[in-house]
């Protein structure tokens, strides 16, 4: 019989198959993410504007930007609708000069530089008071939303509004803190380390686990053990620890699941100073930054779209065990 589990942070219910669960190995698919280097615009010099170079990492303005500093920032009302100009920035982080597709295959120092680069871009965008949120994320593989170019890169979006998912997470964390006077994530780390069945990896600074109410098979959260709401502050000085954990997880995906497409999203607190007042005055104590890492192995269909309620065909405990046992 299935179980229905509640995600504590956003109060979302997930159906987790138990008896009819598929085996972790059932998700292994044959895919290739390799493309020819001679057609690769990231090997040759991209024609887009170079925004930053940090070691082997280069940041370009996106060739098809959804957010631009082009036109004055404005918010308008159109009847009962709200409209905003798409003020902001849409950037491509090219992670290596070499034609390597998967971040899993980069040197640790290069991965470290990628995270350091995210911080540099975030700190720059923070100075723009119209920017509310910056998301650093990766689409690896066509199934994860990437164009079919096998050159390791990630993206940064700086946007002038707070995304709903971010607001939901902040509200859930605040609700928990208001009641318990403790951080939800700090409690989660404590309980999951004690319980240990959903823990995949741990190093000095980070814990990688499969969330209790995972929406997708192989969904992984990387949570920093030190409490901090903001990625750019929390990561500083610990880039190497995150690089080590990320590389290890990505290699386990690559080996255990035959190089699946995946997304990761860095979930950090919104910028506070926009509009000249603190919108989330307690966020430093009640929110805790983290990373969601999700291979793209299943489809989202009518039930999920109609309810926001997910069906996960495999218990996260089985996934954690599977990922723990992969030898790299």
């Amino acid at each position, binding site marked *: 019989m299935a179980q229905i*589990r509640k995600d504590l942070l956003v109060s979302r219910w997930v159906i987790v198959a138990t008896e009819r669960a598929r085996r972790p190995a059932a998700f292994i698919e044959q895919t290739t993410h390799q493309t020819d280097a001679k057609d690769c615009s990231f090997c040759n010099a991209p024609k887009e504007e170079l925004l930053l170079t940090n070691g082997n990492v280069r940041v370009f303005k996106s060739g098809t930007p959804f957010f631009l500093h082009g036109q004055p920032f404005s918010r308008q009302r159109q009847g009962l609708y709200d*409209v905003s100009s*798409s003020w902001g920035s849409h950037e491509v982080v090219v992670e290596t000069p070499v034609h390597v597709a998967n971040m899993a295959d980069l040197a640790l120092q290069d991965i470290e530089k990628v995270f350091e680069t995210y911080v540099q871009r975030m700190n720059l965008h923070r100075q723009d008071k119209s920017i509310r949120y910056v998301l650093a994320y990766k689409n690896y593989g066509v199934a994860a939303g990437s164009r079919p170019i096998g050159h390791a890169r990630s993206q940064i979006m700086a946007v002038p509004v707070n995304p709903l998912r971010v607001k939901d997470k902040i509200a859930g964390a605040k609700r928990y803190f208001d009641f318990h006077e403790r951080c939800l994530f700090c409690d989660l780390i404590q309980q999951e380390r004690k319980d240990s069945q959903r823990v995949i990896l741990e190093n000095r600074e980070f814990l990688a686990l499969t969330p209790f109410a995972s929406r997708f098979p192989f969904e992984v959260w990387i949570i920093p053990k030190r409490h901090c709401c903001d990625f750019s502050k929390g990561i500083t000085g610990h880039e190497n620890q995150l690089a080590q954990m990320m590389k290890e997880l990505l290699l386990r995906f690559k080996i255990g699941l035959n190089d699946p497409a995946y997304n990761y999203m860095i979930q950090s607190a919104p910028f506070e100073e926009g509009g000249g007042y603190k919108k989330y005055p307690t966020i430093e104590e009640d929110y805790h930054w983290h990373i969601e890492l999700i291979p793209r192995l299943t489809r989202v269909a009518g039930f999920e779209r109609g*309810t926001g309620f997910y069906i996960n065909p495999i218990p996260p405990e089985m996934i954690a065990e599977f990922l723990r046992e992969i030898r790299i």
Partner: protein
Amino acid sequence: MAQLRRDPIVGRWVVIDDEHPKGPNDFSKEDHTPRHAEICPFCPGRENRTPLEVDAVRPVEGVPNSSNWQVRTIPNKFPALVHEEHLVKEGIGMFDVISGYGAHEVVIENPSHNKQMTDLTPKEMALVLSQYQRRYQYLSLDPNLKYVVIFKNFGVSAGATVDHSQS
């Protein structure tokens, strides 16, 4: 330049690309020709290959699971939630868990394997909708159920696994 629009119901912002809009035909299409009629468990005459029906519409009163149906509803063979079980609520440390109580049903919309929903006549379509209504009303009698969602997955990329028209 793109525009940001806010959905007034849930407050979600959406980027609308009005600078380089794609054309309506720029999206990839899937072939939806119904196949595998010879082994389809939803076709009339193969009622014994599905779980026993929970409701059906027949032109004349017939025996349940006989083959003269116009619309037929069966429990999903691989249900996400099961109706026979007891509803159990439990706390595990800081987490909340409920047993997988519920119903997961398949409405077979038409006996014909080759008809998609767009091929149904208004009368056939009305039978499908009134079947939805009957299931909805039946399930709403169970005080343990809080919500019923009726949905359709058409095509593999929408999550369909069987070609025969169903919701």
